[in-house]
């Protein structure tokens, strides 16, 4: 997993400390703690994981092992407009793959990447439960249903203006 490096400010370390304390510094709550930290920082850079490990008194390798196990956790910041394509079965049989290909072509990035300008990031989701609207693309909190590959350009333009 590639990662970018940041320097944590004292304030950030304090936030992490508080998150850990809110879970009694219990290593059993690691996943909940990571959720909170990701909510706060937007992603989980190495330094954040390191600080969590110190607070919980567990090895940072263990934290990293957990972070890399779960697809919800990310070590790279998402774009300003995170794009998620549902690749659940219902969306698959209704052409999600072609929509994904089109998005990759349009944004010139692959899944898991962010555009150089930090505007868009692309990821896949397993079923957002809007199977009736398949294929579904989410940009931020907004859901686009029945998306055809031809629609991709137009949708992206909404965010480019």
């Amino acid at each position, binding site marked *: 997993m590639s990662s970018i490096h940041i320097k944590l400010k004292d304030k950030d370390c304090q936030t992490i400390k508080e998150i850990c304390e809110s879970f009694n510094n*219990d*290593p*059993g*709550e*690691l*996943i*909940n703690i*990571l*959720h909170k930290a990701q909510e706060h920082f937007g992603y989980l850079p190495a330094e954040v994981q390191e600080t969590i490990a110190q607070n919980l008194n567990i090895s940072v390798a263990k934290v990293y*092992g*957990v972070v890399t*196990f*779960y*697809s*919800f*956790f990310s070590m790279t910041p998402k774009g300003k407009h995170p794009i998620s394509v549902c*690749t*659940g*079965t*219902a969306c*698959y*049989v*209704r052409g999600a793959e072609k929509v994904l290909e089109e998005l990759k072509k349009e944004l010139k990035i692959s899944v898991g990447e962010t555009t150089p300008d930090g505007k868009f990031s692309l990821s896949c*989701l*397993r*079923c*957002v*439960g*809007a*199977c*009736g*609207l*398949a294929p*579904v693309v989410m940009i931020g909190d907004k*859901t686009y*249903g029945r998306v055809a590959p031809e629609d991709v350009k137009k949708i992206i333009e909404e965010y480019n203006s």
Partner: protein
Amino acid sequence: MSTVKMHLLVCGGTGCVSSYSPQVAESLIKELEAHGLQDECKVVKTGCFGFCEQGPIVKVIPDNTFYTKVAPEDAKEIIEEHIIKGRKVDRLLYTDPKKQEHVPDSKHMEFYKKQIRIALRNCGFIDPENIEEAIARDAYSALGKCLTELTPQEVIDIIKKSGLRGRGGGGFPTGIKWEIAAKNASDQKYVVCNADEGDPGAFMDRSVLEGDPHSVLEAMAICGYCIGANKGLIYIRAEYPLAIKRLKIAIKQAMEYGVLGDDIFGTGFSFHIELRYGAGAFVCGEETALIHSMEGQRGEPTVKPPFPAEAGYLGKPTNVNNVETFANVPPIILKGAEWFSSIGTERSKGTKVFALAGKINNVGLIEVPMGITLREVIFEIGGGIKNGKKFKAVQTGGPSGGCLTETHLDTPIDFDNLLAAGSMMGSGGMIVMDEDDCMVSIAKFFLEFTVEESCGKCSPCRIGNKRLYEILDKITQGKGTMEDLELLRNLSEVIKDTSLCGLGQSSPNPVLSTLTNFWDEYVEHVTEKKCRAGQCTALKKYIIDEEACVGCTACARACPVNAISGERKMPHNINQDICIKCGACYEKCKFNAIFIK
């Protein structure tokens, strides 16, 4: 109170929410207020109606008018025409796909006719964020009955007698599971609700949690009473924000009303429930993996025994059931084991919720009695295949299941029949495929999922599934051999036979079932390099119809690899060796002279 003469139920499930049902509800309220009708007509945001295909849904009570695809702008017309003048808004009514007629109310919809709603009894009926509506519908009455009238063993006996089996996939008898956990003595035990619904294309658990969270909370408390646990944990996907929100509200309200917490109903029994979040790992649906995940570890399954009922969460006896299983419990307690077991088949009692999706007219969530046939589900409830195409297969059981064909359409659906047919019940995903779906590609799609979701702990699953995927990919690329088909089968068998957990033990099912049911299609891919569904890009052939081609050269100019040659005003030709099958020529041709073979 009695002046309220109408209710407008607006679906607040995730599907409808993402097509703006909250805004619809808002507009309706605004319109009602504008006409001074707010006391006569109430807008209620409910859980999912199941009919997601046509969302957002607004249902008018008491006449059961079922409005589909309602936009916020439609609110004015609904209020002014229907509510005030009693005239239904025809254009928003559901159109029957077969008869092409508007259906006046839900009672006349094929979609609902054959359904029996037990687990979904309150979904689309009550406001899930209001415990009072749940209580009015008997919530916590079953818990009250258990705590005051029945011993734990008596409750277990009722569940055993009802024949309820786990709805999460395995189909293990719920009563027996509870009994084992009850018998393992310990100072602390746990009840865990598995809400880590991960099957791509299944969302029944989420619908229950979003539409009727109290039924799950109540059932967990009942389970706690039976096995001697006072703590419950719900392991829920972090990707379900709405369900999480509603669960939190429900837990808070239940605590306030005293139906959860300490000394419930003054009986001395206490039960507390906490939420734990999943983080995107399908394998955590496996109960040992789920427990490790709740303990803050990598969600890697461990060998059973020991079963969670012996040593589960934090090493303590733990009973894990899935959401739908729990949702069935309160009605069984209230209405009796006989009532429940009168529904269903010999060995599969009650109902099952399915998420119907794919190439079908009525996509949505349905609850049907066990023993119903696939034909009834697909062609009656589901309204048949979309766009009048031909039915090809139905995939049940998600990535662990298999593809069933026309020959299985009249098989009664239950745990054992599906297993015998080479698929499984799974959590209830049901994806319908038509003639445009390539079965090799479908198997590949599921394997891609498994490869990504395998935890990597045991070698057959970690490497074997990857190799299965690679062989399938090779076949869809037109590079497969007959020997590959043999290897696929052997490898599939070995992975099933040797994998550590349920994920690997069932992951080859999509391969095996398609190999069995669609052998010809595999052979075609291998020997004729042909994909009859036209889905495998590498096997597509773009050919110019010499009769239709006028030699305009548009295609030749569009071809990025110069595979098209021909004189101006003469029929052109595509060199198949050079063609990269990008389809650019096909799109450019104005004379429909290029066809795909």
